[in-house]
């Protein structure tokens, strides 16, 4: 196992006549690449805080009758955390699902297509949800 590994490494190195520096320069820096990791953690912290609100919201909502429940959804102190929760969790989910797709889909073309579909889906859902939140007050 080790031997075959060593040989394959040698073959790779022999085929490429460029120096390591030249190869590194050729690949180039993407200028970005770690921001998604940081954003995933930041959104995680926001979601932990929002989850505490959600528990209280579910507890309050479960004991309400129907008119009071719809009234609850029009209150700013419920709408704002709900909006933050859904938008943040969709951003968090978009980053997470992207990693999942990148891990399990080995075909590069299919992978790119799926990631783009995922991102379009998330953006549409977030936009539609925000618009829907504005309409809750009108329809109740």
């Amino acid at each position, binding site marked *: 196992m080790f031997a075959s590994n060593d040989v*394959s490494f040698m073959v790779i190195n022999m085929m490429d006549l460029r120096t390591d520096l030249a190869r590194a320069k050729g690949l180039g820096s993407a200028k970005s690449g770690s921001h998604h990791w940081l954003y995933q953690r930041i959104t995680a912290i926001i979601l932990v805080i929002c989850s505490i609100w959600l528990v209280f919201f*579910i507890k309050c909502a479960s004991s309400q009758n129907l008119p009071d429940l719809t009234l609850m959804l029009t209150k700013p102190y419920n709408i704002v955390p709900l909006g933050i929760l*859904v938008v943040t969790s969709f951003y968090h989910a978009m980053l997470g699902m992207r990693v999942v797709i990148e891990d399990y889909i080995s075909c590069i073309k299919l992978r790119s297509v799926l990631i783009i579909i995922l991102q379009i889906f998330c953006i549409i859902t977030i936009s539609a949800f925000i618009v829907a939140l504005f309409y809750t007050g009108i329809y109740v």
Partner: protein
Amino acid sequence: MTKTRQRVYNNRPTSPHITIYRKQISSVLSILHRMTGIGLFAGLSIIVWYFIILVFSKFDAKYLLCMKCNIIKLPAIAICFAWFYHLCNGIRHLIWDSGYCFSIKAINLTGWLVIACSLAMTLALWLLI
């Protein structure tokens, strides 16, 4: 990547597949974290689109009462557990990211703690409702 190099690259030994390993608390929780993440994405998408359609169809709030029906309760409890599990294990990941609790003992302990906490929180919320 050239064709020859691609061939060499493909012949490299791969690491053992997941089914070969003995199940350990850390690996099971890691897999469960990803599975609950995917499940939560699906569940959240359905709930959010349900809400959007509800709002744009004149907000007939009686559809919110479907939570009282028993068929809905099982997936609801599953989503609830997935949410609490992902929350607890996410906090565990955040602790790791800040550089603490890396010893085997701490990893096992926090792992069991996450299971206990998520089960207790799910139970508590459903008893509370």
